[in-house]
């Protein structure tokens, strides 16, 4: 079987590799190439069972976990997008992950004596399955126009805490995600399609929007209608104060 891998050290180039493996995961194939053919092939991996989030790459343009993708003839393997490329399939996730801190994706204070029901737990069960693999971040088209967008996984994480019965200041959480946050998403659903954990950040962002509106926030792109106090630019592009 032949697969193509995009390599990068000083320049980008696509290299072909031949392996004789059947029904193998991409990670197994990458390991085979590295250990037996080309020790310089560089990729990240960890648990090989889909929970550590290390091995996300793109295959034929779509984000997958290498450990969960069965290789097919002529697959083209490339690194994630929207993140600095370090070498071959390895990217630098530091900035992407820093959005978790920017979005304050944590519980505001330690909770005490709060009873959680089965129903309470189900409210963020799936969001708390997130493995931070970065697939959604790579698939998100918003970064092409706004590289400060808090992004799908961070916003899902905010929703996970906002909706948790233990969170005592959900309004503050919502405040944090008004700029470069929920309103910047185009609701294209690209993140949902690539999530290996079946999380829909798009749906979480919609829920955050609706909570935001209930908390008195509004979509800033509409804030100038009727000459509000939102600042920005008027219909003709002139500054309105």
């Amino acid at each position, binding site marked *: 079987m032949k697969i193509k891998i995009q390599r990068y*050290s000083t320049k980008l180039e696509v290299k072909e590799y031949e392996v004789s493996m059947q*029904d193998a*995961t991409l990670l197994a194939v990458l390991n085979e190439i*590295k*250990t*037996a053919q080309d*020790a*310089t092939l*560089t*990729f*990240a*991996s*960890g*648990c*090989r*069972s*889909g*929970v*550590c*989030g*290390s091995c996300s790459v793109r295959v034929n343009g779509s984000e997958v976990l290498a450990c*969960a993708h*069965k290789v097919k003839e002529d697959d083209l393997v490339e690194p994630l997008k929207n993140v600095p490329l*370090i*070498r071959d399939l*390895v990217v*630098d*996730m*530091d900035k992407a*992950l820093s959005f*978790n*801190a920017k979005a*304050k*994706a*944590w*519980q505001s204070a*330690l*909770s*005490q004596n709060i*009873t*959680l*029901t*089965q129903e*309470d*737990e189900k409210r*963020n*069960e799936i969001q*708390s*399955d*997130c*493995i*931070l693999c970065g697939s959604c971040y790579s698939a998100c088209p918003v970064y092409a126009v706004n590289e400060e967008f808090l992004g799908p996984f961070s916003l899902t*994480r905010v929703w*996970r*805490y906002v909706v*948790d019965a*233990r969170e005592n200041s959900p309004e503050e959480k919502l405040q944090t995600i008004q700029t470069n946050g929920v309103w910047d998403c185009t609701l294209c659903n690209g993140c949902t399609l690539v999530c290996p954990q079946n999380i829909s950040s798009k749906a979480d962002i919609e829920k955050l929007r609706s909570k935001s509106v209930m908390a008195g926030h509004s979509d800033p792109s509409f804030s100038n209608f009727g000459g509000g106090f939102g600042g920005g630019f008027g219909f003709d592009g002139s500054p309105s104060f």
Partner: protein
Amino acid sequence: MKSDVLVIGAGGAGLVAALRAHETGASVRVLTKEYATRSQTSMAQGGINAALANVSEDSVEAHVQNTLKSAHGIANEAAVRLLCESAPEAVVWLESIGVCFSRTKDAKIAQRTLGGASAPRACYAQDYTGLKILHTLYDRCLACQIEILNERTLLDFITNTSLTGEVFVSGVSVLNIRTGDVEIYESASVIVATGGYSRIYEKHSTNAKGSSGDGIAAAFRAGASLSDMEFIQFHPTALRDSSILISESARGAGGYLLNSKGERFTNELAPRDEVARAIHEEMKKGEEVFLDIRHLGEAFIDEELPQERKLAKLYENVDPVYELIPIKPAAHYTMGGIEVGSDSQTKVNGLFAAGECANHKVHGANRLGGNSLLELIVFGAQAGENAGKYAKNSKHTHEPIVQKNTLLGEIQEFTSEINFYEMRANIGDIFYEKVGINREEKSLKSALQEVVKIHKNLSLMGPKDKSKIYNTNLVEFIEFKNLLELGEIILTCALQRKESRGAHFRSDFGAQDDALFKVHSIAYREKTAYGVKYED
């Protein structure tokens, strides 16, 4: 820039230690060779033990007794008591920071039965318990603005000797994987939380690729003692071809183990050492072994074991709702590790250890399922607290000297006539066959000879990749070197322990010999080999 406390490793133990050290007012920096959420802790599925009695009667005493029984006489009872008594508080703390545990109908944390437990004691979050705990700890670290530096591989601890002759730690040297540079981080105290060494079994291990015992090997080089290194737990149910873990909770919920004839052959809920041996015996007879959870039903499997279903489909092409899951035992957890006192401190002053890399002597010869996540929280907190206090009180009479790390320079001189990946695979096979579930003198000796021989040729097995930037070939070589160092120690200890106890089963000394061996083995270095002594 110097910090009060350095934490090496960002799994559960490392992050809990960082949080607790931060609480003492110390400045804390965490270094990890991956990213904070990618560690082995993410793979823990079954649960975290605490005698909450949410589902049926239970007590701290029962938890203590189950743990001691499974440990086969070489756990430290005081440490076990501390572990079990602290467990309810540990789970309450996890819940207070936002961990999403599964719930019972009456709004309590759900609990299930794991092997060797007299009650449903493991608190869980579907089969994502470790993942959810780890990520919530990470979020808490972000809330506390704890500095976490990713992709730094530990090379060595930096030690100095005080005027009174005491060896103390003063920082670490690491390889910045991204730049290829050696970096020095100085600190008043260091916490090692780098995980175990199950990957010496390579493809016969359930563990992530990073479980290469880096911190244990480095601590030994720095002068710390290692203890009970021969005790390595085999998990009974790993997928046959990939060694990927199928959680014990599958048996806890009523799953059966069957041989090729479709017969049950053991008590599925006995401790792991017994079940793994029973499976091993069947396989020696030529039987294939399967886990059968079909009778639990699709709804139950999807609710409680969603990950297992996904993994069995992906790696074995079987759907456990309708089919048998082919399994084998695989190396899963290393009971041995860095010898620590009741304050989590090693023999090197200021060097603390917690988690799988440390030996707090709570697991003895065989760990109970659900006790490792617990250990991370309880002893991670203890190490963090004590390292924070140590940093505050430490006053050395002279500025520590920072030794240069010469390892990378040495490796550069190595040739690559032998492919170390082949040797790594060889060692894995040798260990699985000869240092696995069933051991005996002759095969242990031959394994030791082979490891020593490979180790001697290390300078012919250098990395082929000469790149400075993100050289995983080099990182994996360093991991391989650490495993080789530990391999000799494991084998020396396994050879000397001429008895069977828990996970260490010698077919040539089948009985437990309390008169001679109800003691901990402590490895030390002699001029050309390793020695073992025994301590209570």
